[in-house]
């Protein structure tokens, strides 16, 4: 009798199992795959456009300040398509995809009613939230890598590869260029943590997945617009997008670290502030959906 009465043991690897289940569930959603598909298509479009224009022309902005500097070099070296594609997707496509996944993380489960069954399983509110956050960050990484890998493949297919010139004018080997590209992808993924935390917080506020996704993406657009208004200069350093394009500094020789570290610090601050807010909200919330 005492055997039956005793509480069941918690499997030590359980949290990992929940994380694995969460990853599988997220990446098997049709929506997630569609977002990744769109992201994979961006480098293809940019690559083909550059190939058609064959080099010259003003390259029509290329998306963000760091864009044009890279885009003019693509025809010399396909690796630059990776930097161009990341610069083109970072201001909107990437954070939008993250905002959708993060906004849906809890609100979508509440909407479908599956949240209550996860909680009576009992997944535990804090652990479920942490698992969700880890999964959204995994998505940030996956999304960035999809852009980078797609860009590398298209770049290798359409353009020559080889040694490259940094922004500072020095030459580095292709292998080192690849390593820097990977590092840049990691930094870009980390740049999305602020949006991820914000989206997760919004996701705890409502029981409608659509509303949470729309709110997060709306906030993203608002911040991007406010970031363009010079009168708000004093506020700009606190916008999660302020240092986003600092990843280009990794292509300097020597690497210029100041803005890069500021960016990572800012993302950590967002994760802490909105992560805590999400925790406070989610652990104290009545689950009525």
């Amino acid at each position, binding site marked *: 009798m005492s055997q039956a009465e005793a509480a069941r043991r918690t499997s030590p690897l359980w949290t990992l199992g929940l994380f694995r289940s969460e990853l599988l569930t997220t990446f098997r959603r049709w929506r997630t795959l569609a977002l990744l598909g769109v992201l994979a298509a961006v480098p293809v479009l940019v690559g083909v456009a550059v190939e058609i224009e064959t080099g010259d022309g003003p390259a029509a902005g290329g998306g963000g300040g760091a864009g044009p500097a890279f885009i003019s070099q693509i025809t010399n070296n396909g690796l630059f398509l990776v930097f161009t594609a990341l610069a083109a997707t970072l201001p909107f496509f990437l954070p939008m995809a993250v905002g959708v996944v993060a906004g849906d993380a809890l609100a979508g489960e509440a909407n479908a009613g599956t949240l209550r069954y996860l909680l009576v399983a009992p997944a535990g509110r804090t652990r479920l939230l942490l698992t969700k956050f880890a999964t959204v960050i995994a998505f940030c990484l996956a999304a960035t890598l999809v852009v980078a890998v797609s860009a590398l493949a298209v770049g290798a297919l359409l353009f020559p590869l080889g040694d490259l010139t940094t922004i500072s004018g020095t030459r580095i080997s292709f292998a080192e260029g690849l390593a820097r590209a990977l590092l840049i992808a990691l930094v870009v993924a980390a740049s999305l943590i602020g949006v991820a935390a914000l989206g997760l917080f919004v996701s705890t506020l409502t029981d409608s997945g659509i509303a949470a996704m729309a709110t997060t993406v709306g906030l993203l657009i608002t911040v991007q617009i406010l970031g363009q208004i010079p009168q708000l200069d004093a506020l700009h350093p606190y916008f999660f997008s302020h240092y986003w394009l600092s990843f280009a500094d990794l292509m300097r020789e020597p690497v210029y670290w100041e803005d890069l570290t500021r960016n990572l610090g800012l993302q950590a601050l967002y994760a802490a502030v909105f992560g805590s807010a999400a925790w406070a909200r989610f652990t104290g919330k*009545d689950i009525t959906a």
Partner: protein
Amino acid sequence: MGEASATERDGADTVRGAEAGDGAVIATRALTKRYRGGQPAVDGLDLTVPAGSVFGFLGPNGSGKTTTIRMLMGLIEPTSGTAHVLGRPVPRSARAVLPHVGALIEGPALYGFLSGRDNLLRYDAADPTADPRTRRARVAAALDRVGLTAAAGKKAKAYSLGMKQRLGLAAALLQPRRLLVLDEPTNGLDPQGMREIRGLVRELASDGTTVFLSSHLLDEIEQVCTHAAVMARGRLIVQGPVADLAAGARGRLVVTTPDTGDAARVLKEQGVADVVVTEDRVTGEVPGRDLAEVNAALVAAGVRVRGFGAERASLEDAFVALTGEGFDVAG
């Protein structure tokens, strides 16, 4: 094991305590829930569910059944009052209690893009006490138990209402449970499915699982439940063994006649208590003596009898009498 070690273990993650003492698997004291601003949805509930019972939780729409279940499962915080499940307070000890509880709350909820089997794998992965090594076998057993083995590979969004309900039940049966909380478990099931569920409930109960089920279907409760409670407008009206509840609304003797005055007088003479006259019907408690003699007495007194007989009270009569006959949902 000695008393001391039992007390020691209580401090750890054991689930016993009050249950061992007074035999209650669910015990609430003055449990109250007021959703933001509004009327209390549950008002001062004192519910006691004995261990090993099949407990029917009855009440009209909006009477607070689901709200009570959500509080018991730690999903919502009571406004005031306390609740104990398996002898431990909820929501505080929900993490220790819930692995022993299987629940179906306000219908099943599934991931439409996952197959039935993958849905169960996901829910099982959310249980910290579930052994990943036995997961597939337990999922297969649960699917088999609710008759879904053949449809296990189908996407859940392609399931019919009854199939979804069955999958929800399967999720509640992934592990051996000590308490099953089923909020309207036969909703959407065909008659065959309802019978299977009743069979399943009886089978689980005979294994010692306490089953707490809410329902509108009174004959269902009458068929499977040993105990029942009736809610109305957030308040508990009555609770106890089903036999006592039905007995509380005893059958009545009914005489249909145009001569109601004479009939009432004769019935009183024959020892019928609580005689009530309504239009052309005279009713009263069923007397201890042979009804044939009562009828003969009526006829002998010249009362023109159109109908005569004892109407057996069902749980439904008890329910309607207790909750009021109005169809409208209380605001």
